[in-house]
């Protein structure tokens, strides 16, 4: 179908609208964060800073434990990604390649479980964590996030394993590799694209999670980034440090923005394959 001139014009209007809509709120934080303190709260609103000022960025690291929040978020994100990938790969391999009686029913039960929003879990989850001594602990967060990501990861990896040709594995078995070795030495390397997609999405989820982190962690030294930022408002009720908040928003969202720019195609593929992650 040849695009008409009108069609082209419409398409580019759409592209402009969609890009502006998606980027504007984030760009406003970037602009706010670079304003000198006096211009942040200017009346009327200044749309462009007179000069780029990095004071807000210096403040969040000097006056507040932002480096700790970021470190915690990285630890939790990487821990969750590693644990989820390993556990999901083993489970997905069993469901895809090995005979497990009742496997299909289990798969759908897992899917059903993942459908419900985390909000209905938090109350008993906090009690369990208290009893297990996992309050204010990064390990507790890793365990919780791993469980919440497993359904999605198992489904994506299983879908990918299903499409792999079987003869490579059979050759590996003939060479004397066990099933377990075949999974780690043959199947997983062949599935690198699916594993990467899963890992990216799991990391983004963990980096962003708020509700569970807010419920299970009350000590500042164990806080992750989203909770740390939401707490910024609570510090002073009347004098909210908007410049610093904007700087914090930019710093903590930057890893995610970079990941999206670098892995856009994988993320789209993963979301379409899994289609269970909000």
């Amino acid at each position, binding site marked *: *179908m040849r695009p008409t001139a009108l069609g082209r014009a419409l*398409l*580019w209007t759409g*592209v402009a609208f*969609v*890009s502006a809509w*998606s980027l504007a*709120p*984030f760009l*406003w934080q970037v602009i*706010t964060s670079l304003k000198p303190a006096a211009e942040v*709260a200017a*009346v009327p609103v200044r749309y462009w800073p007179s000069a780029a000022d990095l004071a807000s960025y210096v403040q969040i690291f000097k006056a507040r434990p932002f480096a700790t929040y970021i470190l915690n978020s990285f630890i939790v994100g990487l821990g969750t990604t590693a644990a989820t990938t390993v*556990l*999901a790969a*083993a*489970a997905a*391999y*069993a469901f895809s390649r*090995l*005979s497990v009686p009742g496997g299909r029913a*289990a798969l759908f039960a897992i899917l059903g*479980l*993942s459908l*419900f*929003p*985390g*909000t*209905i*879990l938090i*109350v*008993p989850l906090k009690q369990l964590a208290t009893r297990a001594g996992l309050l204010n602990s990064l390990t507790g967060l890793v*365990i*919780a996030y*791993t*469980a*919440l990501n*497993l359904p999605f990861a198992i489904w994506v990896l299983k879908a990918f394993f299903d499409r792999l040709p079987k003869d490579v594995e059979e050759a590996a078995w003939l060479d004397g590799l066990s099933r377990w070795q075949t*999974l780690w030495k043959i199947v997983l390397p062949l599935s690198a694209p699916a594993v990467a997609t899963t890992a990216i999405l799991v990391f983004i989820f963990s980096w*962003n999670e*708020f*509700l569970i982190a807010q*419920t299970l962690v009350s000590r500042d030294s164990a806080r992750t980034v*989203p*909770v740390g930022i*939401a707490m*910024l408002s609570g510090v002073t009720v009347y004098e909210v440090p*908007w410049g610093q908040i904007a700087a*914090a*928003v930019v710093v*903590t*969202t930057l890893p995610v923005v970079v990941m*999206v*720019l670098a892995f*856009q195609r994988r*993320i*789209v593929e993963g979301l*379409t394959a899994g*289609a269970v992650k*909000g």
Partner: protein
Amino acid sequence: MKPDARAGAVNWLYAAPALLVMGVVSLLPIFETFRLAGEFHRIAVDTRFGPVMRTTLSLTAVTVLLELLLGLVMALVLWSPFKGRGFVRAAVLIPWALPTAVMAMAWRWIYNADYGVMGDLLFRLGLVASPQTAFLADASSAYWAIVLADVWKTTPFMAILLMSGLAAIPDELYEAAAIDGAGPVRRFFTVTLPLLRPTILVAVIFRGIQTFGLFDLVYVLTGGGPGGRTQTIAVYVYDVVFRYQELAYGCALTVAMAACLVLMTSLLLAVARERRTR
């Protein structure tokens, strides 16, 4: 290698660690909730329950509908070939990938009563009387502030799901319709929309469930205010349990919430089956 019962049991071991983690974090809390729930009769006389449910249901309906419309536009734009499409797709993914709680702080700044850019923009457009408009202090504008922030955040996910639906529509159908003399608008309504219906249904159910459990955006943006007018059921449960320390009743509300979700899902699925058989 014949799959016998013993091999089946051994194969389950591959999935066992994943199932164990999910069982403890996701399944056990569900049982716990039922065990702890009590004082169900209070729901009937709770004067907050009605307004909270109304807010939650109306938010769910309004945001999912807006998301669907905007998501369709987005999907159609991002599906058409144009120069720089990869970059625009990445830009569109950014709202989805950014932490909700963190962006909720960003939105609070945008809606800020004294220095917010939203007031300034709407004032310049002649839509509000003064650039100093306290959007979050008024029940109706706080509601729409949440709608805008949530639609911004979740439309990319909707668009990606719809794009996977578009990918499944064979080109021949469009060509056949074009030969029959159907213009682009007719083609959209006679080919695209009917064939997208299953995808739309899945997307709406999924997003409906997620929005019904909406927590972090509301909690950080308005805290449920002003005067509880934007309190969703998830925020209400959180307050009942963690602020008023009423565990049994909070669990009862959680059970009611889960029941609503199951009901909503089966209702939508039933409607879908009805449509298909007709």
